[in-house]
Every structure is written in C-alpha cells, then in structure tokens.
C-alpha cells in the first residue's frame, strides 16, 4: 500500500490523542460512574442526562459551542488566558479537551453498568471486614468490574479515533498537530486523491473491526461459561 508522509503523521497523532483521552477519562470517568451507580441523589437523573448528551448531540453542535467557549471571548478562553496558557483551538491540547467531552459517555456508561452489577453485597461484606471505602473500592469493586473497565477503555479509544466533525471544526487542520486520520482522509477525498484516501480508509476499517472484534470476543459470555 502507498502512504504519503502525512498519513503516518496523522495515524500517530490519532493514536496519541485517543490514548491520552482514554487515560484522562479513566481518571475522571471512574468516580463519576461510581457516584452515578451508587447514589440515591435526586441529581442522578440530571447528571446522567448531561453525561449522555454527546451520544445524541450532532458533532457540529458540540464543535460550534466548543469553538465559541474556547475562543477569546468564551468562558474557557477567558480561563486559559487567566491561567496564562495559550488558547485551546488549533492545538493538540484543545483536541484532547474536546475529545474528553465527546467520548465521555463511552467511558462513564459501561463503567456505571459494571458498578451497578456488583450490587451492595460484596461491599457490605468488605465493610464488615473493616475495609475502608477506598480500600474496598480498589480490592473489591475494581477487580469485579474489570471487564467493564476493559469495555469502557476500548470504546473510548475507538470512539476518539472515529472523531471527525468536532476536530474539523476546532482543529484548524494543522499537519502533525490537529490533522488526525479522519481529517486526512477527508482532505484526500476533497483533493480527489482517491487512491490515497482508499489506503488510509482501509487501515481505519481494519483497525475498527479488530477493536470491536476483540471487544466482543474477549467479553465473558455467561452462556459459554454455562
């Protein structure tokens, strides 16, 4: 297969973006999912809905609002200026922030399901053995919910790789900085370089299939366990 140099740049950039976003969301999403799974608060419905929003919002809506929010007159733009860091649009960091919003439900929802499936009993047992809450979380909940962590991480990574609209709107299409694989493919198509678009698209197709195959093949199947 024939690749131009920009293709490798774009693949490496995409992998880095998806990897960082997955790690950040593991840290941010786990407590959020835990709270959603165990709370009896009347805010649960509201927070759950906000977390799920990126599932249904068109990427153009998310991209448009992020562009306004991150701009010099937007709340995030004012915050970054106050903190003395450079504005987020057209930067790799900006893509990370945007992707955290975009992929949030793909981390939180599988984790929440996994935590809910644990039920109260194992944690009550741990409490009677005088395990602290934090202790029982790491020694009881995390091991039981491990398949949930795996699913959530794979989905988050894959969904971030598949991001296009938001990146196109706030990235500025800068080589090696914000031109991810999906945008690179779009550029190939627009410039009528169809064979190059084919090659990179085939890589994306193969990757996406392998990820989902791994996800479904690795997932413990209760019927097979019998």
């Amino acid at each position, binding site marked *: 297969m024939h690749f131009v140099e920009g293709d490798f740049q774009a693949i490496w950039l995409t992998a880095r973006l998806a990897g960082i976003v997955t790690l950040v969301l593991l840290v941010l999403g786990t407590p959020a999912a835990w709270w959603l799974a165990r709370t009896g608060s009347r805010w649960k419905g509201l927070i759950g809905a906000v977390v799920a929003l990126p599932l249904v919002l068109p990427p153009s809506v998310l991209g448009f609002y992020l562009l306004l929010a991150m701009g010099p007159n937007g709340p995030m733009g004012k915050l970054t200026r106050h903190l003395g860091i450079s504005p987020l649009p057209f930067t790799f960091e900006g893509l990370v922030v945007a992707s955290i919003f975009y992929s949030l439900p793909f981390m939180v929802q599988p984790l929440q399901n996994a935590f809910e499936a644990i039920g109260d009993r194992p944690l009550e047992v741990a409490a009677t053995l005088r395990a602290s809450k934090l202790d029982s979380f790491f020694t009881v909940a995390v091991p039981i919910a491990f398949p949930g962590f795996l699913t959530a991480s794979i989905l988050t990574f894959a969904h971030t790789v598949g991001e296009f609209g938001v990146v196109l709107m706030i990235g500025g299409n800068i080589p090696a900085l914000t031109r991810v694989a999906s945008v690179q493919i779009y*550029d190939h198509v627009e410039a009528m370089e169809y064979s190059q678009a084919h090659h990179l698209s085939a890589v994306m197709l193969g990757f996406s299939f392998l990820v989902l195959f791994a996800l479904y093949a690795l997932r413990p199947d209760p019927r097979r366990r019998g």
Partner: protein
Amino acid sequence: MKTLLMFCCLVSAVSTVHAEKITVAAAADLKFAMDEIVSEFKKSNPTDEVEVIYGSSGKFHAQIRQGAPYDLFFSADMAFPRELVKSGFAASEVKLYAWGRTVLWSGALDASKMTLADLADAAISRIAVANPRHAPYGKRAEEALRAAGVWDQVESKLVYGENIAHTAQLVQTGNAQVGILALSLALSPELSPKGSYRLIPDDLHEPLEQGFIVTARAGAKGLAWRFAEHMGSASVREVMSKHGFVLPAGSAGAL
C-alpha cells in the same frame, strides 16, 4: 361544458408549472448573493421552486460525478466545472459569471490599514485561510502570501478552514486574529458589522474566475435554463456587484 374543459386545462397547466423544481449547488462565497438572487427570482416566478445548497466547490464537483441531484453548479473557480464538461456531466458550457476578490479580514484588529506583510508581525499568532488543497480561495490566499514574500514567515501560523465560510467562522469567533476571506463574505450582514477588511491586490494571485454549468441531468429542465438565463439579467448583476463580485462585461446568462 366548455367552461369546465377550460378549467381543467387551466388546472393541469398550473400543476405542470408547479412541478418545476431545481436544486442549485453553490460555492460558499455565494451564500448571501445567491439567497437574494433566488428570492428575487421567486418573485417573478412564484410557482417555481429553487433550492440552494452551499458548500465547497471541490466537494460538489466530486458529488456531481457520483450522481448528486444538482441541476446547476456554481463553482468558485473554472477548473471544477470545466472538468465536468469534459467528462460529460454538463449540459451547458462553462459560463463565467463573476470574479471573486480576496480580503484581509479581522474582528480584533483594524484590518483596513493592514497589508499582507503585517501578517509576519509576532503579535499575530493565528491566520485563517481556506484549505489550499481543495478550496479556490485557499489556493489564491497561498499564492498571494507567496507573492507578497511572507509565506515562510506565516506558514506556521496558518489554520485551515474547510471552505471559505468555515474560514470566516474561525476568524469571526476570534480564534484566529486575521483571515483571508472572500470580499462577498466580508460585506455580508453577518461579518460586516463585526470587523474591518482590506482588499488584497488582485495582481498578487491568479484571478478567482467563477463559472457555472447546467448539469447533464438538468438538460431537459426548462426551469434550470431559465434560471441560468436569469443570471445575466441586470438585476442579478446589480446584486452580484453589491455583494463584492466583479462582473464580466456583457450578458453572463447567455449560454
């Protein structure tokens, strides 16, 4: 009986007229001018339906090759429609309908006193241009920056919009301090109250000749040809020049 027959004829005549509908694919720089042209056209042709879709010329070109249901295609250059004519996707020749102009536009700075050389200034960190790989305005922006001798200094500051309207959005939101836009967008009600512009001398880049075609699928559609004819009318020429386009001499609509 005679009256009834006449009535029937009239009803069927009206409904045939009603059935006429065309879809126009137009380059994003035409947004404001074309909206006005279509609403004028509808005033004198109240039964006709004209639907306009705006986007990048390169994308429309590719879509028409794949059988997109567009009856007329207004490109921001001549090359895309010319290729469609060559490969049999057009029912007409390419008709030059206007020249576009490029401007420096800014909401944050006073662009009316700015030149391309000022873009090298360290105070300017982000400059938005349309993607030169497939957007005609982007190609012209790159040519102008090279001709002005500042390309090497500004290349690392460039951010690329998907088409000229998206490029305008990047500057309008303040995310880029300056942008190279179409004059037609700088004069639009959306942008003109929010910033200032300066024309880029048109000898710094190849001309932005803009051409349109009637597509092959619309060859037998009367309305498509009537709309093409309408483009040469005095009222359309007035609207186009009001919106910042330079017009070719003579009638632009005659095919």
